[in-house]
């Protein structure tokens, strides 16, 4: 594989860039793999990558019904943070954030991780206490966050209105090394690295059945024929329930629409990510200059990848109130994705009732930031049967009443 560098680009320029090779191969499936991952989104590709990198398991296929990175990996608002309250969440998101720090170098693909800082505004006394609690928890979890006062908020975000008539800004939880990354590049970078290890990424191939014998997975049926495997990882976000059904078990998840929007691009005016949970909105500015805005989910099951417009209205009015200068910017594009929500709004990374079959789902609104950590933990779980990163996120927690509830500190968990 050709190494990416400025030098390589310059060299290629001399021959009009005709010498670049494919970023990833596009092979036909083999008859058998050690591991099959269903779903070539960020989480699936990262799982495959760390299986190869950390455990030497490289006879791996990643099967994708559409195009790699075409699901929620490519339609989120790209925020990366780990300032979670509960220990298991903080552990996996901080692992993830740490991996993002070096991901471009690790993958030799610039994923544009930009640790520009993530700020969660406190606009009620209740939120002040919630975020101060999070700050205390983070300090013990090894997550570097701090509570900052309104003056510092205004200094970091000059366009913010800190003394709005409805909800003055009382302070914020600040994670300096949180930020954003280029979402597509994360999927593409992992795909290229996986392909380079000899793994097969098989796009346009839909899994239609899961084969098993004696309670253990033996392979999958696909639109490109049956493929055998020893272990199977299901990492398909919005369609987890359908895959689980093929594998003979059920999941406590529901599919909801989540929406986001961007403004037209403008020159840089906001260098950090701001989340305002009291009014339900968050915003950052992309490298391209667009204000990237996200809000909440619809309340009903929906597989259309379209949401209801009133959620866009609610989000935009919250942000116009918080950042009045955006009133005369224009919404360029709105879109939706399907997110799967669990009973406690935290993900499931778990063994399943089917031997050798593992599930990674339920990321709800917060999956992008977790991609490297989730892949790392899933790879460990699939390779060794145990991972401290995924342990608390098991399927059986709901039966025991052992929830991982992040809404405790913040209304939403993007």
């Amino acid at each position: 594989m050709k190494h990416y560098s400025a030098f390589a680009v310059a060299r290629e320029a001399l021959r009009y860039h005709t010498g670049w090779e494919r970023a990833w191969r596009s092979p036909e499936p083999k008859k058998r793999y050690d591991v099959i991952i269903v779903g070539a989104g960020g989480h699936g590709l990262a799982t495959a990558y760390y299986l190869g990198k950390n455990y030497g398991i490289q006879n791996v296929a990643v099967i994708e019904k559409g195009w790699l990175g075409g699901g929620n990996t490519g339609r989120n608002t790209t925020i990366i943070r780990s300032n979670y309250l509960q220990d298991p969440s903080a552990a996996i998101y901080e692992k993830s954030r740490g991996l993002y720090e070096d991901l471009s170098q690790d993958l030799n693909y610039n994923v544009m991780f930009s640790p520009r800082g993530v700020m969660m505004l406190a606009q009620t006394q209740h939120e002040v206490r919630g975020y101060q609690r999070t700050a205390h928890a983070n300090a013990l979890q090894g997550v570097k966050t701090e509570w900052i006062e309104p003056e510092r908020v205004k200094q970091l975000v000059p366009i913010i209105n800190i003394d709005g008539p409805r909800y003055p800004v009382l302070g914020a939880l600040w994670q300096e090394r949180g930020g954003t990354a280029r979402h597509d590049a994360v999927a593409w970078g992992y795909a290229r690295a996986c392909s380079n290890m000899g793994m097969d990424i098989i796009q346009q191939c839909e899994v239609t059945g899961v084969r098993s014998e004696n309670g253990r997975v033996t392979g999958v049926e696909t639109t490109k024929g049956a493929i055998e495997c020893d272990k199977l990882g299901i990492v398909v976000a919005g369609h987890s329930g359908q895959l689980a059904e093929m594998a003979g078990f059920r999941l406590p998840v529901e599919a909801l629409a989540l929406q986001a929007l961007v403004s037209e691009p403008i020159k840089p005016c906001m260098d950090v990510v701001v989340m305002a949970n009291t009014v339900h909105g968050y915003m950052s500015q992309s490298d391209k200059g667009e204000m990237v805005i996200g809000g909440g989910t619809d309340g009903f099951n929906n597989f259309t990848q379209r949401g209801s417009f009133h959620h866009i209205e609610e989000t935009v009015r919250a942000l116009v109130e918080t950042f009045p200068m955006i009133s005369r910017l224009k919404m360029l594009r709105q879109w939706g994705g399907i997110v799967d929500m669990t009973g406690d709004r935290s993900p499931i990374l778990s063994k399943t009732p089917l031997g050798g079959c593992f599930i990674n789902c339920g990321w709800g609104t917060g999956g992008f930031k977790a991609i490297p950590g989730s892949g790392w933990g899933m790879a460990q779980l699939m390779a060794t049967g145990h991972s401290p990163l995924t342990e608390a996120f098991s399927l059986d927690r709901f039966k025991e009443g052992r929830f991982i509830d992040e809404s405790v500190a913040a209304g939403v968990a993007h």
Partner: protein
Amino acid sequence: MLILKCPYCGVDAEETELTAGGEAHLKRFGPGASDDDFHDYLFMRENPKGVHFERWRHSNGCGKWFHAARCTATLEVFGTYSAQVTEPPKEIRDAISAKRPGWTWREFS
């Protein structure tokens, strides 16, 4: 932006007058129920890509809960009906059969 007809006040209510209430026709399990039954009652939701039965409340309206039969893949509404039933009425099931022959949902078809 869904519109559902509230069977109680007859209004074609748009989504902003309504509150979604999740899966319909749940059987409550209380004290004495097994761990599995209780778990399924609270968490194991139907999540079909297709015909689905769910609860809604006309919260910015007459305040009544009602049931809706809806397709989660196209958002087609097959009908709305009373909250005070434990299973979808026949006319609703027939209406679905006319549009989606062979449909199933839980034990219903």
